[in-house]
């Protein structure tokens, strides 16, 4: 590895990153940092800009504005150098179907100067996948494992996984992620996982990025984010303006409401009224609240995106 991969340089840094497709922005004003050694979850509905972000990170897509860097080096400046620093496992595990496993590894070795053949063969032994077997004769879970092996054997310091397990059965999913986590523990690998399966992400991630409608809603360390949010139980009549902190999501019942707010914990405690209750929020609840969050600014400052939106609320999921 080069000397720019020390732990003080962030693994990933995006600065006002944006990408426009024709008149519509696929991603806009994306600013975030992921430290080296973190395992970051990227969550968002379809069409939120996840794949756009991932493709700019790995240098496959040119940003329209802003920039993104991997271990301090701008991704689109030198695509070949970027590819040496990033491993990418795509959603559909693209492999050459008529190749044998050994052929795939041969290709990997030819294309990657830092290829670790020993690691690749050892994983196949452990998983019981014969090197002579053709890719098309492998199960979906095995094909996913080949993709992961190709990515790990590159020995790149950042591993990017795009919906890596969505097509796998529960046992294959577990096996896949076990290997990712064991490798992270072993080598300090930084991982970015884009996923729909919010309930599974809690055990994987210590860093969280929520993306909706091309905008970053929240990004940061999971512990820190959970610490600065509270779930309030309050009388229904309480207006948002009187809530101690920024209202993220609110559900009204006949007499009471529950509201997720973001606030400094000490200040929030001081502003609680008698009869109000403040509870800590769980990971999944936090993510779901932000997935449904519609800040006024996101649409208002962007007439193109606002016009392109089909309408309020739930439509986004299928866009």
């Amino acid at each position, binding site marked *: 590895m080069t000397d720019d991969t020390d732990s003080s340089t962030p693994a990933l840094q995006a600065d006002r990153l944006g990408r426009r497709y024709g008149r519509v922005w696929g991603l806009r004003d994306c600013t975030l940092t992921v430290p080296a050694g973190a395992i970051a979850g990227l969550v968002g509905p379809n069409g939120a800009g996840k794949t756009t972000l991932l493709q700019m990170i790995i240098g496959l897509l040119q940003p329209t504005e802003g920039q993104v860097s991997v271990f301090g080096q701008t991704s689109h400046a030198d695509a070949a150098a970027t590819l040496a620093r990033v491993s990418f496992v795509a959603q559909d595990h693209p492999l050459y179907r008529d190749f044998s496993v050994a052929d795939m590894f041969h290709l990997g070795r030819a294309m990657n100067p830092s290829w670790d053949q020993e690691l690749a063969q050892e994983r196949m032994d452990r998983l019981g996948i014969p090197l002579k077997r053709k890719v098309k004769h492998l199960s979906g879970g095995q094909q996913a494992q080949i993709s992961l092996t190709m990515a790990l054997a590159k020995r790149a310091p950042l591993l990017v996984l795009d919906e890596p397990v969505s097509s796998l059965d529960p046992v294959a999913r577990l096996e896949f992620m*076990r290997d990712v*986590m064991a490798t992270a523990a072993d080598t300090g690998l930084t991982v970015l996982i884009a996923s729909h399966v919010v309930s599974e992400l*809690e*055990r*994987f991630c210590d860093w969280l990025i929520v993306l909706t409608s091309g905008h970053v809603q929240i990004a940061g360390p999971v512990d820190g984010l959970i610490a600065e949010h509270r779930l309030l139980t309050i009388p229904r009549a309480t207006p948002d303006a009187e809530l101690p902190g920024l209202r993220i999501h609110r559900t009204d019942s006949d007499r009471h409401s529950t509201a997720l707010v973001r606030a400094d914990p000490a200040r929030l405690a001081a502003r609680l009224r008698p009869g109000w209750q403040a509870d800590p929020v769980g990971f999944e609840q936090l993510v779901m609240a932000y997935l449904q969050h519609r800040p006024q600014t996101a649409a208002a400052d962007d007439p193109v995106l606002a016009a392109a939106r089909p309408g309020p609320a739930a439509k986004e999921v299928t866009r």
Partner: protein
Amino acid sequence: MFRFRLDGSTGVPPYLQLVHQVRQSLLLGYLLQGDRLPTVKDVAGDLAINPNTVVKAYRQLEHEGLAAGRPGQGTFITGSLSPDPPGAPGAQQALRESLEKWLRDAEDAGLSDDAVTALIAVARHDVNKEKV
């Protein structure tokens, strides 16, 4: 070797689940002083869990005096937990008697079992809040 498990549906953060399991196993005598806990890599690979979460759980156990890391060797159980706090059998007896009296008073006042449970939860919540 001690093995952890993880339940994704409890709402309890993963690191706390690991801490609870060690505490519980100490109480039940399944973990003893001197036992070595699995390495961070083993737990991460076994449960498909973020290695930083395991590190955090082990740090918490060290903070509680239940475990200690030895450089190059791993993390070992150094403390013990006893269901009866040492030196306090009298105190526990007195607490039990006052609780039984309270439960009889609640029954006399017409509280159902559910109402008693709810009242205890509310009181515990308030006491915990005082601590924060």
